């Protein structure tokens, strides 16, 4: 990242080029940018990217789907500072290899999540209803999301989100929550980029917690397959056997 004219933006530095005065204290979804760049890297050369822990997980999701060749992406581990961790309510901020920065421990709790789950369901619904009314369907959340892989978004289909106007209906947010349930790496980019200030990261965290409880699975590990894609092997369900047989 480099500051130019008062704005901090991502910068690409070629081999042999002087990196100059770069900054690493501003959170930015570099993996989303990498995913746009990657198809153009037809020369077979490698690229290094500054990766926070969440970026590392996002990369794992890319590798898993065969979008990036593992050996062409070199990770420069960046440990987030305390302020960044606080903003993301991040529980897992330390990359596997720390090249830059001081490692700090994660936070166990997200105050908003706790508050929401302590509410009655009516209150919780009212909360989200208030939040989602602000949505102006700008698709910033999906565009900036590193693990939204589709070119055309299903949420633009009237089949699934029937409301033509703005704001979209609840299905917009529910379907997005479902799609991210087995791949959201909790980078917080959706929440950061949302012009309406909807606490989207909190919704992700709520669903992620349930998902982990049910299936013992968290996204961001290249080795594990999403439980939504596996069979029940060995598991039995209630009502499996017909009682009368």
């Amino acid at each position, binding site marked *: 990242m480099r500051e130019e004219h008062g704005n901090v933006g991502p910068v690409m530095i070629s081999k042999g080029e002087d990196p100059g005065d770069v900054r690493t204290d501003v959170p930015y979804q570099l993996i989303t940018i990498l995913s746009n760049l990657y198809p153009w890297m037809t020369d077979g050369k490698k690229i290094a990217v500054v990766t926070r822990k969440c970026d590392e997980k996002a990369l794992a999701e890319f590798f898993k*789907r065969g979008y990036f060749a593992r050996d062409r992406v070199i990770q420069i581990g960046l440990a987030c500072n305390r302020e960044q961790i606080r903003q993301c309510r991040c529980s897992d901020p330390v990359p596997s290899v720390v090249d830059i920065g001081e490692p700090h421990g994660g936070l166990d709790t997200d105050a908003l999540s706790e508050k929401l789950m302590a509410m009655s369901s009516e209150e919780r619904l009212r909360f989200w209803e208030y939040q989602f009314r602000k949505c102006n369907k700008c698709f910033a959340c999906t565009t900036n999301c590193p693990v939204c892989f*589709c070119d055309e978004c299903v949420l633009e289909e009237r089949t699934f989100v029937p409301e033509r106007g703005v704001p979209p209906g609840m299905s917009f947010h529910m379907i997005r929550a479902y799609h991210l349930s087995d791949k959201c790496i909790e980078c917080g980019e959706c929440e950061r980029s949302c012009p309406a200030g909807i606490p989207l990261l909190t919704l992700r965290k709520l669903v992620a917690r349930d998902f982990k409880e049910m299936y013992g699975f968290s996204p961001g590990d290249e080795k594990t397959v999403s439980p939504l894609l596996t069979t029940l092997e060995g598991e039995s369900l209630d009502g499996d056997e017909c009682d*009368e047989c």
Partner: protein
Amino acid sequence: MPRIGVFICHCGHNIASTVSVEEVVRFASTLPGVIVADHNLYSCSEEGLDSIRKSIEQNKLDRVVVAACTPRTHEPLFRSVCEQAGVNKYLFEFVNIREHCSWIHAKEPANATEKAKRLVAMGVSKAALLEPQTEGESSVTPTALVIGGGLAGLRATASLVAQGIDTHLVEKESRLGGLLNDISALAPYSEDASTLLKELVDEVKASNKAHIHLNTKLQGVTGFVGNFNVVLNEAGKEKEVRAGAIIVATGARDFIPTGEYGYGSVPGVITQLEFERVLKTGEKPGRVVFIQCVGSRQPGREYCSRICCNTSLKNALKVVEAGGTATIVHRDIMSSGTVWEELYRNASEKGVQFIRYMLSDPPRIHKKATGIAAEVYDEALGERIEVDADRVVLATPLVSRVDSAEVGKLLKVPRDKHGFFLEAHVKLRPVEFATDGVFICGSARWPSSAKETMSQALGAAAKAAIPIKRGKVVIEAITAWVDADKCAACGNCVVSCPYEAIEIVEQDGKRVAKVNETQCKGCGACVAACPNDAMQQRGFTTRQLGAMIDSLVKHALEESP
């Protein structure tokens, strides 16, 4: 804009006595895209079909909706009418307002009518989005597989090989013949059961088309009609065979009493099958009392096992012929038809005694100094009488085999609440399963006499032989396809497909998923796995199903009072 015709069936009174068909017709005619809405007393009658055919032609319809009974029985019929009138058969949509409406809401006609309207609206909204399809074909492995080497399996195998079809016969025991091995004689035939059985076994063994696998169990089945891959476990060794069709002939076993009538405690109290073995030895039977319905036609096991009365009649006659005496203690003598009724008459005439007991007052068995006494309340006389006996034979029902559950699971075919296999339709498809290419015969379906078993085995053999003789099966056009523009090649579909029919390929410089349609069986698992709207199933596209939901919302929530 589609041109939709909607046809509502009265089904005589079956629908019309609950649902106001006229009201549904009026409503249907207001739905978008509907050119004509009509009704028939019986849409499936020649008259009904003819009027649909004419309406398609006169109104130049390009989509047809019939609201009647269930697509599971009647869809082919209406599809063929569409074809005859020049409309692709996949432009037909079936709405079930009988099984799913009139029959189950018989006491609330107004609500049922409203529901029928909503169901029709949903069907019409789907129909508007239907697209014409063409069907594929797949070849058939010219081999059959028969599971079970008892009477049913043997006869089915004999028939298939006689028709020139290679057949694998799988038997879990070390010898063929099943229950028949233990039976003394088969009424009403004069020859001994073992002579008859040997004749059939020899016939099968002599054919070079019959491949007999003894000590063998079914281990795994994959594939579909025409091309099943079956893994057998032959005496501990795995063996793979391929088959175009499968016949289930796993039979049944006799119920072993759990202490009823002194079984296990009073000597001389034995089951019918044990008595068959006694008769086989030629031992003098002495005084014999047969007790019918032991463990059947009572709470817990309600059914009548069909063959036990006739077996007792046959054995009672044998007892009398051997100089003994026989008494049959029964609740009803189930000797239906000509042959068995004659046997009943013969037994009566030859001196077999019949005493009727009531379920509420079953016979009691006492041990005596010599022999056994059976105390029975005779319903006809209204008196309690005692009969002395050397043996008490308990006629127990046939019950399903424990391992039929496993066979059912492997083949994905259902069983009824008693564990007998459940055929596709109890009246008109007695030897078929709902699953194409898998058939059923003999006592695995329901207790059957030898003669009935033979008929059913021949029936199942015919059903199995048909696809093999035709050499091909048609693949219904419900397979999946990919909208390449929307596909992001995430691979969810590849992992979700149970048939490994999907792969990621490079197409026009883009990585996309591709469906191999001959492998696709049309389950649609990939559709739900796709995070986008790229994966679609023919006849069940996301737009079609989405439209049905929208329609329900519109008619149930927005327009209801």
